[in-house]
């Protein structure tokens, strides 16, 4: 056997697809009559959305006292949920922007979908900082709006940075997503047979006609937006982590937070993409586009980021010891052994141990197993935010102030309600927008490569030329 092995690059789109079949596969979902199953899913999603609205309404009517917050623990589920949802959003931007800049063509299958998830997750996230304040009716004071009283926000406050970071992130993500949608909307406009759709899609496709000029502008815009979104992936969660890191509270005041939060965000975001992808591709029969190879690649990212998060957990302990700060030491020992040890060990199990299974190729290509782990990871990441937010506040400097935090029914209902919002938005997205970036997927088909055409313009499927002195490794998709 030769010492060189040739690893064939697996095809990004499985099956015998050409441009037309891809278009059909994706647009049919939007153009055929709404299936009953969609309504069946929309019903519980709407019910949960209603629950969210009721919970928020009651919250605004009664005050934040309906939650389990106490004197030392001023932030509870609301902030946990906020960080969790924002974190989930990260995967979408990472996939669509960073992987785009790195020319990772496999991203095309999932980027639309992941970006939609980002936007909806950020919407869910944005609810919490808005509603968790005591006086929501004056929440606009966090914006630097010139006024006659010359009241200005405090630019020292990480919460203010948050306002800018998250709103910028949301805006750029939305724009990026929309720009990417334009060619596909035009496709839908062209395929649509009824007037309503033609007008609707037509309006949002901005007169796209596929001209060279349009494509040229589009590519540039997409590239610029990808460039803009890339630092945001890193900055948003960095700034979210500043909410904690800039404070003086032991367990919060930690310089490792920015990278650790970003890694955690990508970790949970990929898990969420997988959860959604596994269900969606099954339901809509998109296995040819969203292949097991995609799943495997994402599992590897989960494994890597999970290990980074695990490393950060260990490092926190080390630094707590190394710093010699007794409060810092105490809080980390208390996390692992104190009143919230149960939450800490859920976090450790879900986030550090569970992704390690993906070292095994067998497990990381197993759909069911991946699905389970993807959910476990998100449970773990929720608990990570719980551990950070609650335990530090519950056991800080003065032992006299220590208290135990217990959430109320309303904490839980509000959180569950956000799944209603997310679900509703996601179902609407699946129904009305192309869940796969048609134009981009087409671009990675072999048919899109001019080298695969002979002088007559006839397409020939590419044949891999393997030098004789190398052996062929087992293909990923053998």
């Amino acid at each position, binding site marked *: 056997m030769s010492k060189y092995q040739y690893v064939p690059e697996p095809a990004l789109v499985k099956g015998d697809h050409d441009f037309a079949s891809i278009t059909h596969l994706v647009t049919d979902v939007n153009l055929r009559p709404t299936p009953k199953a969609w309504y069946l899913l929309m019903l519980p999603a709407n019910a949960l959305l209603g629950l969210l609205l009721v919970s928020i309404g009651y919250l605004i009517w009664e005050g934040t006292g309906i939650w389990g917050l106490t004197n030392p623990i*001023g932030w509870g589920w609301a902030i946990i949920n906020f960080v969790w949802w924002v974190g989930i959003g990260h995967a979408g931007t990472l996939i669509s922007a960073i992987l785009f800049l790195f020319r990772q063509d496999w991203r095309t299958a999932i980027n639309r979908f992941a970006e939609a998830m980002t936007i909806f997750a950020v919407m869910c996230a944005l609810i919490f900082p808005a509603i968790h304040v005591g*006086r929501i009716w004056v929440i606009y004071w966090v914006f630097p709006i010139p006024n006659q009283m010359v009241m200005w926000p405090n630019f020292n406050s990480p919460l203010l940075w948050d306002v800018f970071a998250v709103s910028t992130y949301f805006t750029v993500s939305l724009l990026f997503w929309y720009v990417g949608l334009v060619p596909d909307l035009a496709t839908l406009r062209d395929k649509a047979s009824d007037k309503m759709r033609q007008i609707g899609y037509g309006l949002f496709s901005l007169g796209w006609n596929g001209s060279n000029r349009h494509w040229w502008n589009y590519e540039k815009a997409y590239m610029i937006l990808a460039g803009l979104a890339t630092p945001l992936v890193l900055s948003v969660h960095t700034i979210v982590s500043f909410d904690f890191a800039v404070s003086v509270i032991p367990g919060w005041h930690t310089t490792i937070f920015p990278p650790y939060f970003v890694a955690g965000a990508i970790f949970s975001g990929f898990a969420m993409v997988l959860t959604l992808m596994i269900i969606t591709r099954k339901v809509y029969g998109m296995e040819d586009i969203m292949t097991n190879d995609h799943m495997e690649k994402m599992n590897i990212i989960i494994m890597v980021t999970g290990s980074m998060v695990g490393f950060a957990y260990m490092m926190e302990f080390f630094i707590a010891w190394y710093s010699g700060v007794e409060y810092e030491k105490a809080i980390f020992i208390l996390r692992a052994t104190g009143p919230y040890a149960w939450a800490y060990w859920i976090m450790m199990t879900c986030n550090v141990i569970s992704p390690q299974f993906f070292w095994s190729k067998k497990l990381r290509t197993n759909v069911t197993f991946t699905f389970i782990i993807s959910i476990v990871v998100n449970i773990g990441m929720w608990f990570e935010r719980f551990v950070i937010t609650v335990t530090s506040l519950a056991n800080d400097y003065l032992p006299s102030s220590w*208290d135990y935090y217990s959430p109320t029914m309303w904490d839980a209902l509000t959180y569950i309600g956000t799944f209603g919002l997310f679900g509703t938005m996601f179902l609407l997205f699946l129904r009305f927008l192309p869940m796969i970036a048609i134009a981009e997927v087409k671009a990675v088909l072999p048919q899109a490569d001019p080298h695969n055409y002979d002088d007559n313009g006839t397409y020939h499927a590419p044949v891999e030329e393997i030098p004789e002195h190398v052996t062929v490794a087992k293909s990923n998709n053998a």
Partner: protein
Amino acid sequence: MSEPSTQANTKTYWKSLNELAQNKEYKNFVEREFPENATELNDGVSRKGFLRIMGASIALAGFSACRRPVQKILPYAQQPEDIVPGIPLFYATAMPFHGNLVGLVVENHEGRPTKIEGNDLHPASHGNTNAYHQATMLEMYDPDRSRSPRRKGKKASGQDFISFAKTFFADTDKRIVVISEANSGITYNASKQTFLSNFPNSQWVSYESFSEEHVLEGNKLAFGQRLRSHYNFMNADIVLSLDDDILAATHPNNVEYAKQLTTRRRVTSRDDAMNRIYSVENGFSTTGSFADHRLRVKTSEVQAFADALASTLSIRMNGLSAYSKVNNQFTDTPFLVALANDLVKAAGRSAVSIGWDHSPEAHATVAAINVALNNVGQTVDYLEVPHLGDIDQHAAMAEALTNMKAGKIDAVIIIGGNPVFTAPSGWDLENALSSVEEVIHLSTYNDETSKKASWHLSRAHFLEAWGDGYSFGGARSVIQPQIQPLHDSMSDIELLNLITNQSYTTGYDLVRNTFRGIHRTNFDNKWTSLLHDGVDRASDAPSTKAVKQNGYPNSGQAAAAVMSGVVMDYRKANVQLSNSLRPSAPEVVDGIELVIKADASLYDGRYANNGWLQELPDPMTKITWDNVALMSPATATKLDLENEKEVTLTAQNGTTVTLAAWIQPGQADDSITLHAGYGRQGVGRVADYDTEQMAGGRNVFPMRPGTSAVAGTVQVSATGNQYPVSCVQDHHSLEGRDMYRQATLEKYKETPDYSSFAYVHKYEVPGIKEAAELGEDQPISLFNEQTYPDYEPQWGMAIDLNSCFGCGVCVIACQSENNIPVIGKKEVGRGREMHWIRNDRYYIGDKNDPQAVHQPVPCMHCELAPCEQVCPVAATTHSNDGMNQMTYNRCIGTRYCANNCPFKVRRFNFFNYPKEYLTTGEDPDIIQMAMNPEVTVRFRGVMEKCTYCAQRVNRAKIDAKINTGSVKPADGAVLTACQQACPADSIYFGDLTDEQATVTQMKRNERNFLMLEELNVRPRTSYIAKLTNPNPALVDNTMPEEAH
């Protein structure tokens, strides 16, 4: 004033708001403004101003916005003399408690009293107060107070009763029993004598649930005369408290005693000496926590300890030979031997006291010890108190009860008190009352006793009725009303005079007549200065150390010269120890003893409807809203109990009570303590046991066989249920942290810097070395070090941990001053207590027998405040005079500041607490009157915290500017509410740019330290580390020396 109210009363409008009923109520209230008996106070000041304001405000109330109702006010049509809107007036008065007066000064805003302060001319106050005094303000405005007399449960008027009394008491042969609360009133006791001679068939009984009778009877055993024990701890080097919580508000003279005990522990330099306090008790009391040595024994063994001590002392001192044969479990124990040596060494400069609820025999022993130690006349005086009489009131009560049950009594008049609730079940008082034709009860609330009475009379609060009386030591005072009675009520003296003479005379005339009898010459001058000073002094002219009309009265220690001018009416008896005094065998309680004590907050239940007191954490357990079964960790283990496990206790007399078990470190083993006063029914919204909130505790009075502390043995059985208890402090250990620092006096002399960061941690404060290189004296920082570096004054506070004994008066004083809401048990249980200053209590050492320390924590007003930095809307900022300010209007309620506060002093309005507090109930406008108009009432969703009493600071700055042109007030011109109330003078506040200011000097003390100094937040509030003064002979047996 009533015209606009009718005009605004568009019925449909109010009905639609469901507020019609409330408005009618209010109209009635307004119409009562001039009751026929109203008397114009002749000091030229009308105090009815509030009615005009309130009447006007309600009259034009409209509802034009969704956010808050618009209320218009009207100016005075005719300006009353002396009243400047916005400028408070201060009047002296005195509060009766347990028959003893403590002099007070009351702040009045536009005619309504809003805040109580101590009277610095009064020997029982020294300018300070306890929690009961502070909270009485709320009691007066309590909407649940009785509003009118009731005839057999139905509402009646005061006139109805007057006509009834005129006919009923016309027959002076009627057989009448009067059951009176302890009352030192001069007018009252004179009336009592007239009554007893007018009604020859009548009997008078004085009843208090926690009475002084055993002291008097014990002193009678020792000296042959019923005498009051009155201590002067100023002269005592060694103090032994035998289960006597002299520092707690439950002791009627606690303010004076606290002042004396803490003054003797004030150490400002290494040359100062301290007294040494020994405490022998079963439960952990504030006095026990303040002691240098504490021995935990069962309450039933305290007498044995006293006997053993007398026996040990008998060898070396004269007069105790009768005790020489005593030999019991305490004889020759190291604690007792060391104590005895100390007492002998300090003979004449020591004091031994014993709890009021111990047996007369034990009191006699203690009296004998004090005589033997030559303490009489030095540290303890035995006072002849005429109104306490010569008769054992317990025996008198027994006789009265027998007569009542036998149907030999025509009428029972109960003046104050609530005997149906507090009487031991063995008395069968309810049954006795039912055999009497007319039972007349004068009471603040329509309470348990009132409901058994044929006449309930609404008792005027002392802030709204004239009266007089004596302090514990015998200083005369007049109780000067601050406001017209809010309800159709009557005072003690008016009632007694009405019954005696069958004609109504106003309290004002009664009191004035009494003092005309005392001061036969120059009466007008005397009367004026008496009212002005709040205490009768030898001189005719008002004290020049005048209570200021504007600004705040001076606090702190009044000069001895000022006090010496006070007339003391009680004569010091020339005591001679009885020859026949013999030790008696103490009652032994087998197994677990049950001890019933007065509650630190509710006393015997009389303050049960006071939300401030219900929510005041117990000084030791930190529990609010409930009483619990306190037991030692070992007893809990033995009984297999934990905190909050519900238990049923069965007393020796067969009565049972079910409440939560609670582990009290330091409690004596096999001894369960219950606090009385809880578990009331049908009294008010605050007091009643609330089934929904599970608050209000259980009534334990029926378990008492008599009025002694020990209620025999008790059977304990767990019910298997959990009873949630709202305790404001969940964690009781310091975890080896350094926020509390202490050392022994000896160690302090060796290492004066024992409380410094460098000494405690063995390294310097982080960043200080780097700063030194830059030539700075504070650790380096990222932020603007001080926004206004040159502005003067700069405010700061120092808290002396050496004198704080954790009573909690600062909490209530702050609550009263700053309009802090009461939030109820459930919310407290959630950890949402609103107190701006809290009192942390830590246990140090062995959990079975720990030391307990107290640490008041207000806002630290950090110079580099972490809260200010994180607020997104800059709602919390720094003032130019160095205070960390909260702008409520700007706050959006992110709670980030509270999270980032290392001291956790910020409080959040999770709900609209003030709305609950100020606008519910049948007559919310009354409770609104208790609010301080100078402090904003906070809305839902905003953060709040200690402001260093910014309103007082600003008033002083304005005054200073008017008077001197500079905004720098003189030292002592600003007293924060907590500081002013504190009888231990633990809190110092002032201008740090004033080199001579007391606070500056305190901060210069070597023992001064900053909490969490290493964070470099630079608190303006600092602590003076604690010192203990243990007996070197007991050093192994003593408390842990250091707490870090």
